[in-house]
């Protein structure tokens, strides 16, 4: 049991370390407070979205509306939260509740989560366009301040990523609530037999995912100071890739919150690495695909040796 667990976290750490070393080798000036902050700045919203996706994958589903939802949250944050804070925060809370309701609907009616979330991606996209037909808006002052704070020694982006990983780890791996959620992904029926309501649990899981996704959208606006309806569409693919890179599996509720955050950092770093290589931006998405495939292949090799 222990060696398998080690490998699940070892591989993401190793891929991040190798990529980081390669970046430093190509661009030694990145090895500084400012450099690190620039490298990992955009990792914070990606890491939050990845944790959200991880929670959905943990209960055996997959969320194809993550990018649209984070974009919608960004639009709410850049418009309503600035202009009418009361209404804005209420809208964000309602969005989390909507996510929980989706989870309940999926469990109660035994719906395919893939189709439901794909459909919802249209709904969130539509709401985002209604709120913000053209790019614009502004970041709430406190959010901008939080996202640009400069703590001593360690850049904010690195600290925030560590905090996200710790929070997700405590909730998912260390709390009894997390055990229940992982059990839902492992064997929903046995949880039901034990007297738990699968509908309530799936609703809770989706609500928790919605909370992290809302934080992701807010963090994104804090960094970009504006939003548009398509600002985070690529987060759907990035978040799934991040979970896989971080050692998550698709069945049995086997995920790693720390790994997922590291996976998100790796994917963000891959973008900077490619630009340091002077590789055309045409290949950015493709390279993410190649990295994903390479890590999966490596996992297969290591996993076999360990057995």
């Amino acid at each position, binding site marked *: 049991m222990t060696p398998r667990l080690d490998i699940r976290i070892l591989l993401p750490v190793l891929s991040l370390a190798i990529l980081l070393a390669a970046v430093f080798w190509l661009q030694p000036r990145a090895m500084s407070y400012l450099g690190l902050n620039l490298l990992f700045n955009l990792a914070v919203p990606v890491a939050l979205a990845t944790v959200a996706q991880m929670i959905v994958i943990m209960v055996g589903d997959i969320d194809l509306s993550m990018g649209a939802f984070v974009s919608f949250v960004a639009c709410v944050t850049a418009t309503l939260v600035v202009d009418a804070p009361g209404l804005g925060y209420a809208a964000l809370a309602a969005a989390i509740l909507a996510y929980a309701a989706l989870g309940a609907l999926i469990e109660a009616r035994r719906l395919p989560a893939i189709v439901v979330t794909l*459909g*919802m991606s*249209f*709904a969130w996209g*539509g709401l985002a366009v209604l*709120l913000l037909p053209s790019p614009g808006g502004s970041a709430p002052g406190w959010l901008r301040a939080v996202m640009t704070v400069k703590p001593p020694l360690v850049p904010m982006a690195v600290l925030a990523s560590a905090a996200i990983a710790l929070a997700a780890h405590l909730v998912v791996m260390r709390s009894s609530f997390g055990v229940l959620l992982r059990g839902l992904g492992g064997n929903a029926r046995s949880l039901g037999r034990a007297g738990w309501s699968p509908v309530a649990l799936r609703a809770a899981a989706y609500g928790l995912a919605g909370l992290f996704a809302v934080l992701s959208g807010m963090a994104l606006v804090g960094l970009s100071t504006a939003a548009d309806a398509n600002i985070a569409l690529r987060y759907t693919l990035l978040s799934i890739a991040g979970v896989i890179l971080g050692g998550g599996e698709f069945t049995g509720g086997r995920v790693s919150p720390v790994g997922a955050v590291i996976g998100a950092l790796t994917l963000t770093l891959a973008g900077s690495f490619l630009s340091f290589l002077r590789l*055309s931006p*045409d290949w950015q998405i493709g390279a993410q*695909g190649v990295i994903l495939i390479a890590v999966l292949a490596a996992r*297969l090799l290591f996993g076999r040796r360990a057995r």
Partner: protein
Amino acid sequence: MSALLDRPWIWAWLAAFAAFAATAAISQSQGIAGLLVAALTFSAFTVLVGLGQMFVITLGPGNIDLSIPATMTLAATLSLKFMGGAGALALPGLAVALAVGLGAGLVNYALILLLRIPPIIATLAASFVYQSLAIWSNRGLRIKPPDLLSDLMLGRTLGLPNVAYIALAACLLAWVALERARYGREVTAIGQNLRAARFAGIAVERVRCATYLLSAALAGVTGFLLACFAGGAALNMGQEYLLSSIAVVVIGGSSIGGGRSNVPGVPAGAMFLFLIVSMLNSYGLGAGVRLLLTGVIIVGIVALGTRSRTAR
């Protein structure tokens, strides 16, 4: 009558007819004939990719081809580039699109087999690479399809659009393949019970390989046809087919869990999707409301449709 009502695809057809009536009632400017032609034209492309997706979904839980949009774009870009607007190269151009599709399907299946990862992730990761290839080869590209092909795609025979005939032929072939051929029985058997299918002596991996090849090949050809129809390949041309290829299978009454699929539901689902969007259009709603309602309607249909099937 009750035998007809038992068919899983009947509800999709009823919904499509209802949507047609509702849309025709409010869009006087276009006329019923115009609406029918538009519906047949645009749903034809969805039908073609939907059929491929249907066979993949039949294979069982977790089997979904997410690389369809990227494969469409890549095949369209490369084949249009190859033809360079020359009508004489129309057939070789189609062959190029087919070859790109088959190549993508082979890569998808190789990843599923060799890396032993869920097909969703394999096709997703591969689609990143196809998308990048398409972006790279499409850069600043504005190649028009040969006039011969665009005329063929935009043309009508006996009052109905040519693409509708192509989709109809594809549906008939798919029906024979699913219901009457050994291949369809094997795909269905695998989707119902993988282990039982293996014990029954079905060459499971060969059938799975053929299915992913089929889906990608259809995506490649559809990309080619769509680019000829639209007058060129755009990088986002495949985007909407990610949702619609899956949605038409589910709306058509096939089980998303696999093992229980039907062909007649696919064209009905495609028509319904198109008609819903055009109905929202003719109400004069903005893009935001339209998107929102499309999403809510799809989720609603899936919620109701899945319920009526599990209740039985």
